[in-house]
Protein backbone atom coordinates (compact mmCIF):
# COMPACT_ATOMS: atom_id res chain seq x y z
CA UNK A 1 0.00 0.00 0.00
CA UNK A 2 2.85 2.33 0.85
CA UNK A 3 4.27 1.82 -2.63
CA UNK A 4 0.96 2.02 -4.48
CA UNK A 5 -0.09 5.54 -3.55
CA UNK A 6 2.99 7.31 -4.98
CA UNK A 7 2.62 5.16 -8.06
CA UNK A 8 -0.89 6.52 -8.66
CA UNK A 9 0.48 10.03 -8.20
CA UNK A 10 3.19 9.23 -10.71
CA UNK A 11 0.68 8.10 -13.32
CA UNK A 12 -1.40 11.20 -12.69
CA UNK A 13 1.66 13.37 -13.26
CA UNK A 14 2.50 11.54 -16.48
CA UNK A 15 -1.10 11.88 -17.69
CA UNK A 16 -0.93 15.61 -17.01
CA UNK A 17 2.30 15.85 -19.02
CA UNK A 18 0.75 13.98 -21.94
CA UNK A 19 -2.23 16.36 -21.90
CA UNK A 20 0.10 19.37 -21.95
CA UNK A 21 1.99 17.85 -24.88
CA UNK A 22 -1.09 16.83 -26.89
CA UNK A 23 -3.45 19.74 -26.23
CA UNK A 24 -1.76 22.30 -28.56
CA UNK A 25 -1.98 19.77 -31.40
CA UNK A 26 -5.66 19.17 -30.76
CA UNK A 27 -6.42 22.86 -30.42
CA UNK A 28 -4.82 23.54 -33.83
CA UNK A 29 -6.83 20.74 -35.50
CA UNK A 30 -9.95 21.99 -33.69
CA UNK A 31 -9.41 25.58 -34.88
CA UNK A 32 -8.69 24.47 -38.44
CA UNK A 33 -12.13 22.83 -38.65
CA UNK A 34 -14.11 25.79 -37.27
CA UNK A 35 -16.02 28.58 -39.04
CA UNK A 36 -14.56 32.07 -38.43
CA UNK A 37 -17.52 32.91 -36.16
CA UNK A 38 -16.76 29.92 -33.95
CA UNK A 39 -13.01 30.65 -33.89
CA UNK A 40 -13.72 34.03 -32.28
CA UNK A 41 -16.73 32.76 -30.32
CA UNK A 42 -15.01 31.50 -27.17
CA UNK A 43 -13.38 28.22 -26.22
CA UNK A 44 -14.97 25.06 -27.64
CA UNK A 45 -12.94 21.91 -27.31
CA UNK A 46 -14.26 20.34 -30.51
CA UNK A 47 -15.75 21.89 -33.69
CA UNK A 48 -19.54 21.96 -33.22
CA UNK A 49 -20.20 22.36 -36.95
CA UNK A 50 -17.01 21.17 -38.64
CA UNK A 51 -16.08 22.70 -41.99
CA UNK A 52 -13.38 22.14 -44.60
CA UNK A 53 -13.57 25.80 -45.61
CA UNK A 54 -10.21 26.78 -44.14
CA UNK A 55 -8.45 24.05 -46.08
CA UNK A 56 -10.25 24.99 -49.29
CA UNK A 57 -9.30 28.66 -48.91
CA UNK A 58 -5.71 27.66 -48.21
CA UNK A 59 -5.43 26.13 -51.67
CA UNK A 60 -7.77 28.51 -53.54
CA UNK A 61 -6.50 31.88 -52.29
CA UNK A 62 -3.22 31.28 -50.51
CA UNK A 63 -1.12 29.33 -53.06
CA UNK A 64 -0.70 26.39 -50.72
CA UNK A 65 -0.56 23.97 -53.64
CA UNK A 66 2.61 25.56 -54.95
CA UNK A 67 4.20 25.70 -51.48
CA UNK A 68 3.59 21.96 -51.16
CA UNK A 69 5.00 21.22 -54.61
CA UNK A 70 8.08 23.34 -53.88
CA UNK A 71 8.64 21.58 -50.57
CA UNK A 72 8.30 18.12 -52.09
CA UNK A 73 10.66 18.90 -54.98
CA UNK A 74 13.29 20.62 -52.83
CA UNK A 75 13.22 17.97 -50.09
CA UNK A 76 13.26 14.99 -52.47
CA UNK A 77 16.08 16.17 -54.71
CA UNK A 78 18.32 17.45 -51.93
CA UNK A 79 17.87 14.34 -49.76
CA UNK A 80 18.49 11.91 -52.64
CA UNK A 81 21.63 13.74 -53.78
CA UNK A 82 23.04 14.14 -50.28
CA UNK A 83 22.33 10.49 -49.40
CA UNK A 84 24.25 9.40 -52.48
CA UNK A 85 27.36 11.56 -52.12
CA UNK A 86 27.29 11.36 -48.32
CA UNK A 87 27.10 7.56 -48.22
CA UNK A 88 29.95 7.23 -50.72
CA UNK A 89 32.08 9.56 -48.60
CA UNK A 90 31.08 7.75 -45.40
CA UNK A 91 32.10 4.45 -47.01
CA UNK A 92 35.52 5.84 -47.82
CA UNK A 93 35.94 7.11 -44.26
CA UNK A 94 34.77 3.84 -42.69
CA UNK A 95 36.82 1.47 -44.86
CA UNK A 96 40.13 3.09 -45.83
CA UNK A 97 43.07 4.26 -43.79
CA UNK A 98 43.38 7.79 -45.19
CA UNK A 99 46.29 10.20 -44.94
CA UNK A 100 46.47 13.45 -42.97
CA UNK A 101 44.19 12.06 -40.26
CA UNK A 102 41.24 12.54 -42.63
CA UNK A 103 39.26 9.68 -41.10
CA UNK A 104 38.80 11.67 -37.91
CA UNK A 105 39.00 15.27 -39.08
CA UNK A 106 36.47 14.83 -41.90
CA UNK A 107 33.92 13.57 -39.37
CA UNK A 108 34.57 16.52 -37.08
CA UNK A 109 34.15 18.96 -39.98
CA UNK A 110 30.87 17.27 -40.95
CA UNK A 111 29.65 17.58 -37.38
CA UNK A 112 30.62 21.24 -37.11
CA UNK A 113 28.81 22.11 -40.36
CA UNK A 114 25.74 20.38 -39.02
CA UNK A 115 25.77 22.36 -35.77
CA UNK A 116 26.19 25.89 -37.15
CA UNK A 117 23.00 27.82 -36.34
CA UNK A 118 21.14 28.77 -39.54
CA UNK A 119 21.15 32.48 -38.77
CA UNK A 120 24.95 32.51 -39.10
CA UNK A 121 24.68 31.18 -42.65
CA UNK A 122 21.78 33.04 -44.22
CA UNK A 123 23.37 36.42 -44.86
CA UNK A 124 26.45 35.10 -46.65
CA UNK A 125 24.28 32.58 -48.48
CA UNK A 126 21.94 35.39 -49.54
CA UNK A 127 24.85 37.38 -50.99
CA UNK A 128 26.25 34.25 -52.65
CA UNK A 129 22.95 33.24 -54.24
CA UNK A 130 22.37 36.82 -55.40
CA UNK A 131 25.79 36.67 -57.05
CA UNK A 132 24.78 33.52 -58.98
CA UNK A 133 21.22 34.80 -59.72
CA UNK A 134 19.77 31.89 -57.73
CA UNK A 135 17.66 33.89 -55.27
CA UNK A 136 14.02 32.83 -55.18
CA UNK A 137 14.67 29.58 -57.09
CA UNK A 138 14.16 25.98 -56.05
CA UNK A 139 17.61 25.18 -57.38
CA UNK A 140 19.19 27.61 -54.91
CA UNK A 141 17.41 25.96 -51.99
CA UNK A 142 18.27 22.48 -53.28
CA UNK A 143 21.99 23.30 -53.44
CA UNK A 144 22.06 24.65 -49.89
CA UNK A 145 20.01 21.85 -48.34
CA UNK A 146 22.13 19.27 -50.18
CA UNK A 147 25.26 20.66 -48.55
CA UNK A 148 23.73 20.81 -45.07
CA UNK A 149 22.22 17.31 -45.33
CA UNK A 150 25.46 15.82 -46.62
CA UNK A 151 27.19 16.68 -43.35
CA UNK A 152 24.53 14.77 -41.43
CA UNK A 153 24.58 11.80 -43.82
CA UNK A 154 28.38 11.42 -43.58
CA UNK A 155 28.26 11.55 -39.80
CA UNK A 156 25.43 9.01 -39.43
CA UNK A 157 26.38 6.60 -42.24
CA UNK A 158 30.03 6.38 -41.22
CA UNK A 159 29.01 4.75 -37.94
CA UNK A 160 26.39 2.51 -39.58
CA UNK A 161 28.84 1.27 -42.23
CA UNK A 162 31.60 0.74 -39.66
CA UNK A 163 29.25 -1.70 -37.90
CA UNK A 164 29.08 -3.94 -41.01
CA UNK A 165 31.78 -6.64 -41.13
CA UNK A 166 34.33 -6.20 -43.95
CA UNK A 167 34.45 -9.90 -44.84
CA UNK A 168 31.14 -9.87 -46.66
CA UNK A 169 32.08 -7.24 -49.21
CA UNK A 170 35.58 -8.67 -49.58
CA UNK A 171 33.97 -12.01 -50.47
CA UNK A 172 31.86 -10.20 -53.07
CA UNK A 173 34.99 -8.60 -54.51
CA UNK A 174 36.69 -11.99 -54.76
CA UNK A 175 33.61 -13.07 -56.72
CA UNK A 176 34.30 -10.32 -59.24
CA UNK A 177 32.62 -7.19 -57.90
CA UNK A 178 34.45 -3.87 -58.02
CA UNK A 179 34.53 -1.58 -54.97
CA UNK A 180 31.55 0.45 -56.13
CA UNK A 181 29.39 -2.50 -57.21
CA UNK A 182 30.22 -4.21 -53.89
CA UNK A 183 29.15 -1.05 -52.09
CA UNK A 184 25.92 -0.99 -54.06
CA UNK A 185 25.11 -4.72 -53.97
CA UNK A 186 26.35 -5.69 -50.51
CA UNK A 187 26.96 -2.74 -48.17
CA UNK A 188 23.93 -0.61 -49.03
CA UNK A 189 21.39 -3.42 -48.48
CA UNK A 190 23.04 -4.29 -45.15
CA UNK A 191 23.04 -0.64 -44.10
CA UNK A 192 19.46 -0.16 -45.31
CA UNK A 193 17.85 0.38 -41.87
CA UNK A 194 20.44 3.03 -41.01
CA UNK A 195 20.12 4.55 -44.45
CA UNK A 196 16.34 4.74 -44.08
CA UNK A 197 16.59 6.40 -40.67
CA UNK A 198 19.14 8.88 -41.99
CA UNK A 199 16.94 9.65 -44.99
CA UNK A 200 13.88 10.26 -42.84
CA UNK A 201 15.80 12.52 -40.48
CA UNK A 202 17.08 14.51 -43.43
CA UNK A 203 13.55 14.79 -44.80
CA UNK A 204 12.24 16.05 -41.45
CA UNK A 205 14.97 18.66 -40.98
CA UNK A 206 14.76 19.91 -44.57
CA UNK A 207 10.97 20.02 -44.72
CA UNK A 208 10.88 21.91 -41.41
CA UNK A 209 13.50 24.52 -42.25
CA UNK A 210 12.15 28.03 -42.12
CA UNK A 211 14.89 30.61 -41.76
CA UNK A 212 16.90 29.70 -44.88
CA UNK A 213 13.81 29.38 -47.07
CA UNK A 214 12.36 32.62 -45.65
CA UNK A 215 15.52 34.59 -46.37
CA UNK A 216 16.29 33.23 -49.82
CA UNK A 217 12.84 33.09 -51.42
CA UNK A 218 10.22 35.78 -51.92
CA UNK A 219 7.29 34.46 -54.01
CA UNK A 220 5.17 31.28 -54.19
CA UNK A 221 7.37 30.33 -57.15
CA UNK A 222 9.97 28.95 -54.71
CA UNK A 223 8.58 29.40 -51.18
CA UNK A 224 8.17 26.23 -49.10
CA UNK A 225 5.42 25.13 -46.70
CA UNK A 226 6.81 26.73 -43.47
CA UNK A 227 7.29 30.04 -45.28
CA UNK A 228 3.77 29.68 -46.66
CA UNK A 229 2.45 29.23 -43.12
CA UNK A 230 4.16 32.42 -41.99
CA UNK A 231 2.70 34.47 -44.86
CA UNK A 232 -0.73 34.03 -43.28
CA UNK A 233 0.36 36.23 -40.39
CA UNK A 234 -0.28 39.68 -41.84
CA UNK A 235 0.78 42.99 -40.36
CA UNK A 236 -2.77 43.96 -39.44
CA UNK A 237 -4.77 40.78 -39.55
CA UNK A 238 -4.06 37.13 -38.96
CA UNK A 239 -6.00 34.51 -40.90
CA UNK A 240 -6.38 32.18 -37.92
CA UNK A 241 -8.49 29.50 -39.63
CA UNK A 242 -6.28 29.01 -42.70
CA UNK A 243 -3.19 29.40 -40.49
CA UNK A 244 -4.34 26.49 -38.30
CA UNK A 245 -5.13 24.42 -41.40
CA UNK A 246 -1.69 25.19 -42.81
CA UNK A 247 -0.13 24.12 -39.52
CA UNK A 248 -1.98 20.81 -39.66
CA UNK A 249 -0.79 20.16 -43.22
CA UNK A 250 2.73 21.20 -42.25
CA UNK A 251 2.82 18.85 -39.26
CA UNK A 252 1.05 15.76 -40.60
CA UNK A 253 3.69 14.18 -42.87
CA UNK A 254 6.39 14.88 -40.31
CA UNK A 255 4.49 13.18 -37.49
CA UNK A 256 4.07 10.07 -39.64
CA UNK A 257 7.79 10.02 -40.47
CA UNK A 258 8.75 10.62 -36.85
CA UNK A 259 6.70 7.65 -35.67
CA UNK A 260 8.51 5.44 -38.20
CA UNK A 261 11.97 6.39 -36.91
CA UNK A 262 11.18 6.82 -33.23
CA UNK A 263 13.60 4.03 -32.31
CA UNK A 264 16.48 5.94 -33.87
CA UNK A 265 15.34 9.28 -32.56
CA UNK A 266 17.85 9.88 -29.82
CA UNK A 267 20.72 8.80 -32.04
CA UNK A 268 19.59 11.20 -34.76
CA UNK A 269 19.00 14.21 -32.55
CA UNK A 270 22.22 13.89 -30.61
CA UNK A 271 24.09 13.34 -33.87
CA UNK A 272 25.03 9.84 -32.82
CA UNK A 273 26.53 10.73 -29.43
CA UNK A 274 23.88 8.78 -27.54
CA UNK A 275 22.56 5.53 -28.99
Amino acid at each position, binding site marked *: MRARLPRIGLYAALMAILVIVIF*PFWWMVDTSLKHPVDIFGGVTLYPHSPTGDNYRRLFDTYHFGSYLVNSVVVVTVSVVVSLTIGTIAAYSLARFQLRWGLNQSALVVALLVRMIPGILLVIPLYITLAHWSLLNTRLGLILIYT*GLNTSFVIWMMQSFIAEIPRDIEEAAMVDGDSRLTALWRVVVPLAAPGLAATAIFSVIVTYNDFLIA*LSLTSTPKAQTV*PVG*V*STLIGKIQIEFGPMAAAGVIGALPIIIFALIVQRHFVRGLTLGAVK
Partner: protein
Amino acid sequence: MRLPAGPYLLLLPAAVALAGVSIYPLFYGVRASLTRYLYGRDYGYTGLTNYKNAIHDTFFQDAMVTTAKFVICTVTIETLLGLGLAVLVSRELRGSGLIRVGLILPMTIAPVVVGVMWRLILDSGVGVTDPLFQLLGLPAPEMLAHNGTAFIAVVMVDVWEWTPLIFLILLAGLQSLPQEPLEAALVDGAGRVRLFFDHTLPLLTPVLLVAIVLRTIDAIGTFDQIYVLTKGGPGTATRLISLHAYNTAFLFTQYGQAAAMLIMLLAAVTILMVVAVRMMRRVAR
Protein backbone atom coordinates in the same frame (compact mmCIF):
# COMPACT_ATOMS: atom_id res chain seq x y z
CA MET B 1 43.89 -1.08 -54.11
CA ARG B 2 45.15 -0.39 -57.61
CA LEU B 3 44.20 3.28 -57.57
CA PRO B 4 45.69 4.96 -54.50
CA ALA B 5 43.62 8.08 -55.19
CA GLY B 6 40.35 6.06 -55.15
CA PRO B 7 39.27 6.66 -51.54
CA TYR B 8 39.98 10.36 -51.87
CA LEU B 9 37.92 10.60 -55.06
CA LEU B 10 34.98 9.08 -53.16
CA LEU B 11 35.22 11.97 -50.70
CA LEU B 12 35.34 14.65 -53.34
CA PRO B 13 31.64 15.28 -54.16
CA ALA B 14 30.73 15.44 -50.47
CA ALA B 15 33.68 17.72 -49.75
CA VAL B 16 32.54 20.15 -52.45
CA ALA B 17 28.99 20.13 -51.08
CA LEU B 18 30.19 20.75 -47.51
CA ALA B 19 32.57 23.53 -48.53
CA GLY B 20 29.72 25.16 -50.45
CA VAL B 21 27.70 25.66 -47.26
CA SER B 22 30.57 26.36 -44.85
CA ILE B 23 33.90 27.73 -46.09
CA TYR B 24 32.47 29.54 -49.09
CA PRO B 25 29.70 31.43 -47.25
CA LEU B 26 32.03 32.05 -44.33
CA PHE B 27 34.49 33.71 -46.68
CA TYR B 28 31.66 35.81 -48.14
CA GLY B 29 30.44 36.60 -44.63
CA VAL B 30 33.81 37.94 -43.51
CA ARG B 31 34.08 39.94 -46.72
CA ALA B 32 30.58 41.36 -46.25
CA SER B 33 31.41 42.36 -42.67
CA LEU B 34 34.27 44.49 -44.03
CA THR B 35 32.16 46.06 -46.78
CA ARG B 36 30.01 49.17 -46.76
CA TYR B 37 26.46 48.57 -48.03
CA LEU B 38 24.00 51.31 -48.83
CA TYR B 39 20.45 50.28 -49.73
CA GLY B 40 21.80 46.80 -50.33
CA ARG B 41 24.49 47.90 -52.78
CA ASP B 42 28.17 47.17 -52.33
CA TYR B 43 30.29 50.32 -51.80
CA GLY B 44 33.65 48.69 -51.20
CA TYR B 45 36.01 47.98 -48.32
CA THR B 46 35.36 49.86 -45.12
CA GLY B 47 37.64 48.28 -42.53
CA LEU B 48 36.22 47.52 -39.12
CA THR B 49 33.49 50.20 -39.28
CA ASN B 50 30.69 47.61 -39.28
CA TYR B 51 32.10 45.96 -36.15
CA LYS B 52 32.39 49.32 -34.36
CA ASN B 53 28.86 50.28 -35.37
CA ALA B 54 27.50 46.92 -34.24
CA ILE B 55 29.19 47.11 -30.84
CA HIS B 56 27.90 50.64 -30.24
CA ASP B 57 24.40 49.76 -31.47
CA THR B 58 22.20 49.68 -28.34
CA PHE B 59 19.73 47.36 -30.08
CA PHE B 60 22.55 44.87 -30.62
CA GLN B 61 23.52 45.09 -26.95
CA ASP B 62 19.87 44.64 -25.92
CA ALA B 63 19.52 41.67 -28.25
CA MET B 64 22.63 40.03 -26.79
CA VAL B 65 21.28 40.48 -23.25
CA THR B 66 17.85 39.15 -24.25
CA THR B 67 19.45 36.16 -25.97
CA ALA B 68 21.57 35.40 -22.90
CA LYS B 69 18.50 35.62 -20.66
CA PHE B 70 16.53 33.42 -23.04
CA VAL B 71 19.24 30.76 -23.29
CA ILE B 72 19.87 30.64 -19.54
CA CYS B 73 16.16 30.41 -18.67
CA THR B 74 15.24 27.80 -21.27
CA VAL B 75 18.26 25.52 -20.89
CA THR B 76 18.05 25.56 -17.08
CA ILE B 77 14.34 24.79 -16.94
CA GLU B 78 14.59 22.15 -19.67
CA THR B 79 17.51 20.41 -17.97
CA LEU B 80 15.82 20.26 -14.57
CA LEU B 81 12.46 19.15 -15.98
CA GLY B 82 14.06 16.66 -18.37
CA LEU B 83 16.19 15.15 -15.64
CA GLY B 84 13.24 14.85 -13.27
CA LEU B 85 11.08 13.22 -15.92
CA ALA B 86 13.80 10.81 -17.00
CA VAL B 87 14.36 9.64 -13.43
CA LEU B 88 10.60 9.16 -12.99
CA VAL B 89 10.12 7.14 -16.15
CA SER B 90 13.36 5.14 -16.07
CA ARG B 91 11.89 2.82 -13.48
CA GLU B 92 9.95 0.28 -15.51
CA LEU B 93 6.52 1.78 -15.79
CA ARG B 94 3.64 0.48 -17.82
CA GLY B 95 2.82 2.97 -20.56
CA SER B 96 6.26 4.57 -20.65
CA GLY B 97 6.41 3.68 -24.35
CA LEU B 98 3.36 5.86 -24.92
CA ILE B 99 4.99 8.73 -23.03
CA ARG B 100 8.10 8.41 -25.19
CA VAL B 101 6.13 8.57 -28.44
CA GLY B 102 4.03 11.48 -27.17
CA LEU B 103 7.07 13.45 -26.13
CA ILE B 104 8.75 13.04 -29.51
CA LEU B 105 6.00 15.00 -31.26
CA PRO B 106 6.77 18.59 -30.10
CA MET B 107 10.35 18.53 -31.32
CA THR B 108 9.68 16.80 -34.64
CA ILE B 109 7.21 19.20 -36.17
CA ALA B 110 8.45 22.41 -37.74
CA PRO B 111 9.24 25.15 -35.19
CA VAL B 112 7.05 27.41 -37.34
CA VAL B 113 4.12 25.09 -36.67
CA VAL B 114 4.97 25.14 -32.96
CA GLY B 115 4.75 28.92 -33.18
CA VAL B 116 1.37 28.67 -34.90
CA MET B 117 -0.02 26.26 -32.29
CA TRP B 118 0.97 28.47 -29.39
CA ARG B 119 -0.17 31.65 -31.12
CA LEU B 120 -3.61 30.00 -31.41
CA ILE B 121 -3.51 29.27 -27.66
CA LEU B 122 -2.02 32.51 -26.33
CA ASP B 123 -3.65 35.04 -28.67
CA SER B 124 -6.10 37.38 -26.94
CA GLY B 125 -8.67 37.12 -29.74
CA VAL B 126 -8.96 33.39 -30.33
CA GLY B 127 -6.85 31.81 -27.58
CA VAL B 128 -7.41 29.65 -24.54
CA THR B 129 -5.27 31.32 -21.88
CA ASP B 130 -7.30 34.51 -21.46
CA PRO B 131 -10.68 32.74 -21.05
CA LEU B 132 -8.98 30.30 -18.65
CA PHE B 133 -7.76 33.10 -16.40
CA GLN B 134 -11.17 34.79 -16.52
CA LEU B 135 -12.81 31.51 -15.57
CA LEU B 136 -10.67 31.55 -12.42
CA GLY B 137 -11.78 35.12 -11.74
CA LEU B 138 -8.40 36.61 -12.69
CA PRO B 139 -7.74 39.42 -15.20
CA ALA B 140 -6.90 38.26 -18.73
CA PRO B 141 -3.09 38.27 -19.05
CA GLU B 142 -2.94 38.96 -22.85
CA MET B 143 0.43 37.25 -22.76
CA LEU B 144 1.75 38.25 -26.17
CA ALA B 145 0.84 41.91 -25.71
CA HIS B 146 3.02 42.82 -22.71
CA ASN B 147 6.81 42.81 -22.44
CA GLY B 148 7.25 40.59 -19.37
CA THR B 149 4.60 38.02 -20.24
CA ALA B 150 5.68 37.84 -23.89
CA PHE B 151 9.18 36.86 -22.77
CA ILE B 152 7.71 34.28 -20.40
CA ALA B 153 5.59 32.99 -23.28
CA VAL B 154 8.51 32.42 -25.66
CA VAL B 155 10.50 30.71 -22.90
CA MET B 156 7.49 28.53 -22.09
CA VAL B 157 7.03 27.52 -25.72
CA ASP B 158 10.71 26.61 -26.00
CA VAL B 159 10.46 24.53 -22.82
CA TRP B 160 7.41 22.76 -24.24
CA GLU B 161 9.23 22.01 -27.47
CA TRP B 162 12.68 20.98 -26.23
CA THR B 163 12.36 19.46 -22.73
CA PRO B 164 11.54 16.17 -24.48
CA LEU B 165 14.98 16.17 -26.15
CA ILE B 166 16.82 16.40 -22.84
CA PHE B 167 14.42 13.84 -21.40
CA LEU B 168 15.04 11.31 -24.18
CA ILE B 169 18.81 11.77 -24.11
CA LEU B 170 18.91 11.30 -20.33
CA LEU B 171 16.53 8.36 -20.47
CA ALA B 172 18.83 6.62 -22.96
CA GLY B 173 21.76 7.52 -20.70
CA LEU B 174 20.06 6.19 -17.56
CA GLN B 175 19.08 2.93 -19.21
CA SER B 176 22.63 2.28 -20.37
CA LEU B 177 24.11 2.71 -16.88
CA PRO B 178 25.50 -0.45 -15.28
CA GLN B 179 23.01 -1.76 -12.71
CA GLU B 180 25.35 -3.71 -10.39
CA PRO B 181 27.00 -0.81 -8.47
CA LEU B 182 23.56 0.72 -7.89
CA GLU B 183 22.16 -2.53 -6.52
CA ALA B 184 25.24 -3.03 -4.36
CA ALA B 185 24.77 0.44 -2.87
CA LEU B 186 21.08 -0.26 -2.25
CA VAL B 187 22.00 -3.47 -0.41
CA ASP B 188 24.45 -1.45 1.67
CA GLY B 189 21.50 0.62 2.81
CA ALA B 190 21.93 3.83 0.83
CA GLY B 191 18.71 5.86 0.50
CA ARG B 192 17.25 6.52 -2.93
CA VAL B 193 18.09 10.24 -2.85
CA ARG B 194 21.68 9.61 -1.65
CA LEU B 195 22.00 6.93 -4.31
CA PHE B 196 20.93 9.38 -7.01
CA PHE B 197 23.38 12.11 -6.04
CA ASP B 198 26.31 9.81 -5.15
CA HIS B 199 26.06 7.24 -7.93
CA THR B 200 23.57 7.94 -10.72
CA LEU B 201 24.25 11.63 -11.32
CA PRO B 202 28.06 11.35 -11.61
CA LEU B 203 27.68 8.46 -14.07
CA LEU B 204 25.10 10.43 -16.04
CA THR B 205 27.12 13.65 -16.15
CA PRO B 206 28.88 13.12 -19.53
CA VAL B 207 25.57 12.51 -21.30
CA LEU B 208 23.95 15.38 -19.41
CA LEU B 209 26.69 17.77 -20.54
CA VAL B 210 26.30 16.73 -24.17
CA ALA B 211 22.58 17.42 -23.92
CA ILE B 212 23.16 20.84 -22.33
CA VAL B 213 25.76 22.00 -24.85
CA LEU B 214 23.77 20.84 -27.90
CA ARG B 215 20.67 22.54 -26.54
CA THR B 216 22.59 25.75 -25.77
CA ILE B 217 23.94 25.99 -29.33
CA ASP B 218 20.43 25.50 -30.72
CA ALA B 219 18.86 27.95 -28.28
CA ILE B 220 21.28 30.71 -29.28
CA GLY B 221 20.03 30.41 -32.86
CA THR B 222 16.30 30.33 -31.99
CA PHE B 223 14.32 32.22 -34.62
CA ASP B 224 11.29 30.49 -36.15
CA GLN B 225 8.91 30.20 -33.19
CA ILE B 226 9.54 33.77 -32.07
CA TYR B 227 9.11 35.09 -35.59
CA VAL B 228 5.63 33.55 -35.63
CA LEU B 229 4.68 34.35 -32.02
CA THR B 230 5.87 37.94 -31.52
CA LYS B 231 8.26 38.94 -34.33
CA GLY B 232 10.56 40.03 -31.49
CA GLY B 233 7.98 42.33 -29.89
CA PRO B 234 6.31 43.90 -28.10
CA GLY B 235 8.96 46.57 -28.46
CA THR B 236 12.20 44.63 -28.18
CA ALA B 237 11.06 42.30 -25.38
CA THR B 238 11.67 39.06 -27.29
CA ARG B 239 14.07 40.28 -29.97
CA LEU B 240 16.87 37.74 -29.84
CA ILE B 241 20.13 38.26 -31.70
CA SER B 242 18.87 36.11 -34.58
CA LEU B 243 15.83 38.34 -35.09
CA HIS B 244 17.89 41.49 -34.76
CA ALA B 245 20.44 40.28 -37.32
CA TYR B 246 17.64 39.18 -39.65
CA ASN B 247 15.96 42.59 -39.44
CA THR B 248 19.25 44.42 -39.88
CA ALA B 249 20.02 42.46 -43.02
CA PHE B 250 16.67 41.93 -44.68
CA LEU B 251 14.53 44.86 -43.49
CA PHE B 252 17.23 47.54 -43.40
CA THR B 253 19.57 45.93 -45.99
CA GLN B 254 22.59 46.62 -43.73
CA TYR B 255 24.26 43.37 -44.79
CA GLY B 256 27.69 44.50 -43.61
CA GLN B 257 26.63 45.35 -40.08
CA ALA B 258 24.51 42.19 -39.80
CA ALA B 259 27.45 40.07 -41.00
CA ALA B 260 29.72 41.74 -38.44
CA MET B 261 27.26 40.89 -35.62
CA LEU B 262 27.00 37.31 -36.75
CA ILE B 263 30.74 36.82 -37.03
CA MET B 264 31.14 38.00 -33.44
CA LEU B 265 28.40 35.56 -32.46
CA LEU B 266 30.05 32.81 -34.51
CA ALA B 267 33.23 33.21 -32.49
CA ALA B 268 31.28 32.48 -29.31
CA VAL B 269 29.33 29.59 -30.84
CA THR B 270 32.49 28.02 -32.29
CA ILE B 271 33.97 27.66 -28.82
CA LEU B 272 30.79 25.89 -27.72
CA MET B 273 30.80 23.66 -30.79
CA VAL B 274 34.39 22.56 -30.24
CA VAL B 275 33.55 21.73 -26.63
CA ALA B 276 30.49 19.80 -27.85
CA VAL B 277 32.45 17.74 -30.37
CA ARG B 278 35.05 16.77 -27.78
CA MET B 279 32.43 15.70 -25.26
CA MET B 280 30.35 13.82 -27.80
CA ARG B 281 33.27 11.74 -28.98
CA ARG B 282 34.15 10.84 -25.43
CA VAL B 283 30.56 9.75 -24.73
CA ALA B 284 30.19 7.85 -28.01
CA ARG B 285 33.28 5.78 -27.23
